[in-house]
């Protein structure tokens, strides 16, 4: 299965970071594991002290997910959005 990871532009710390990457896997966990191979920067952004960085949020399609949801199945065409938890207004 193929999933599209989309990074919020407000998380872009350098021009080298991709806005979107394609990830393969049967479950969210598989896809998340693949990130480190394609983009170590995004991997480092996501993880903190062995857990998902609490200041980074992930949406699988339109649903906010936590680590406990990482065994959710993935279908081709799914979208995983990564956004910062803190933004002002």
């Amino acid at each position, binding site marked *: 299965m193929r999933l599209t990871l989309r990074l919020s*532009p407000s998380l872009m710390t350098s021009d080298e970071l991709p806005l979107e990457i394609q990830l393969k896997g049967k479950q969210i966990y598989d896809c998340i594991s693949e990130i480190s191979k394609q983009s170590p920067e995004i991997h480092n952004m996501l993880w903190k002290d062995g857990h998902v960085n609490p200041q980074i949020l992930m949406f699988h399609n339109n649903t*906010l997910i936590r680590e406990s949801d990482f065994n959710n199945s993935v279908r081709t065409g799914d979208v995983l*959005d990564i*956004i910062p*938890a803190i*933004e*002002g*207004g």
Partner: protein
Amino acid sequence: MSVVKNNLSNINDVTYQQCVINLTNSTIKVHQRHCQNLEEVLGGFARAYQTLAKHDVDHAYSENNPLIVTTGLLTGTPIMTGLRTYFCSYSPLKVSNQGRPGAMWSAASGKFGSKLRWTGIDEIVFEGRSSTPVLLHVKQSEHGPEINLIPADDYLGKSSHEKILLLQKQFADSHFAVIGEAGEHYDKCFFGSVACSTENLLKSGDDKCRWAGRGGMGSIMGYKNIIGIIADARDPKISLTGELKELNKFIATGPGSRKYREIKKGGLGGTWSNYDTLSKLNIVPENNFKPPANPKALQLARQEVEKDFVVKAENCFRCAIACHKNIYEKTTAGKHGKFLAKFDYEPLNLLSTNLGIHDSRQATELVALCDRYGMDSISAGATLSFVLDYNQRNPDAPLLNNARFGDFELIRDLLISVGQGKCLELGQGVKRLSESLNSTDYAMHVKGLELPSYLPETNPGYIWAIAGGHMSMQTYGLLAAEGETNLDYWENVIVNKGLYMVRDDITGICKFSNLDGQRLTQAISLLTGINISEDEIKTTVRHAFLRGIWLEKKQGFNDSDYELPAEILKMQNENVKTPSFLTEKYLKELKKRVFSHFDEEIKKLCA
């Protein structure tokens, strides 16, 4: 803005319509200006700051200080969120230690900016000062824009909302930018804001403006005796192409706007959700930016407020993000009743939690009052919290009725008093007030602009924000998110990331669209015919930002102005769960490093 299909081989081919109004002698001239550089092409503060730089201004309230009401290249176009208006001037609030005012802008959505561009005017420059209160009427006509000054005596003493409703009766197909009572009393309130009307406001009759809040642009309007501006034009018929539809769909459903969308639409429910996130690290400002060991911030988290009130997500013109989180009374049937206020993270926090107020009804009242009088909630809130802090530290010589944290009635009375122009102590802002009391250490401002709702000990980037700490330097959430404290990291994020936040204070789209560079260039090409690369946009944004720093230095801002509130360097708040890293030595080195980049670039840019 007039353009032909243009690969920008000749920037001069791009023109914009600028209306220059000399209020002192009531002359009005419209010029077709040829752009000299990309900053002028993209517009917003990038264009306006070049005009400001040509004026030598010693005092914000002086006739040679212009007020520039401008738009961005995408304002009024069918790109979603292309609604921004920018109010630019030398600010009465932002001031150097030498006493000279700093250049500043404040932006608002709503529909005023679009209507203004549809009249055929891209930018208005107000010069001088009117001897009597006036309204500016800009009307679209077959022969080009018709522009007139109209007496405004009948509008004085009314709230911004009342002014808009009155204007609506006379100018049916128009939108409005007006000031409230605070702006009228510019000499007693330096943080008057500008209210821009929304379709929702005009249809519902509820007080649902969008605000150009920061830096006292409403007070500048008040000084100039401009009570309001009427943009009178028909809505153009639009047909969205396939590509544009896709772009708008992406803005409405993409990752960039998730924070601001409703939870049922795959979002986080607005900036208000910062309460939940920041509370985990105990960094929601409380009691003048000093969270206690047992914080009460979460009492005003959205899920708590929704127990007693209905929250409706409403929107600006043609925007599907629906970032307005409007609070209504809850009827016995659980439906929405009377509209009360709009909650965003900053106004809510600074007018409640940071004042020691944790009751949601009281919070709605204070937020609504601030809007009613037309004041910047950040400046009003942070100046109030300083007063409460001062009174706690000086029980034998308290200020202003001895108001204390949590004392709702006294705080409400003070807010009304400053809104009515009866309390200069508060109305002058926290920098001047704290200096007059010789108590500057815990006055939460940088360069005279009160801090937004992120603790100063978490964000050294505040020092380089050129128009408000969370609107012009995107470093305020980084310590919480990444936990990095080393100098190389902060030097890099300030110099190479944070400053690009001002891009959408130029282009005409809203920061909440969070549109990536590639799609932005696509939108510009589709809607204006101008082909501009991502790199060119980045360079233009950087130049505009650096021009802002250069203008600060031109106005006398020096090392002593580029500082954080002293107390956070002297006294660590043990309750805060982010790493403590800021010291005088650290900041001195960081300033040296950051300015070594900026000064070098400014030398080339502004030679």
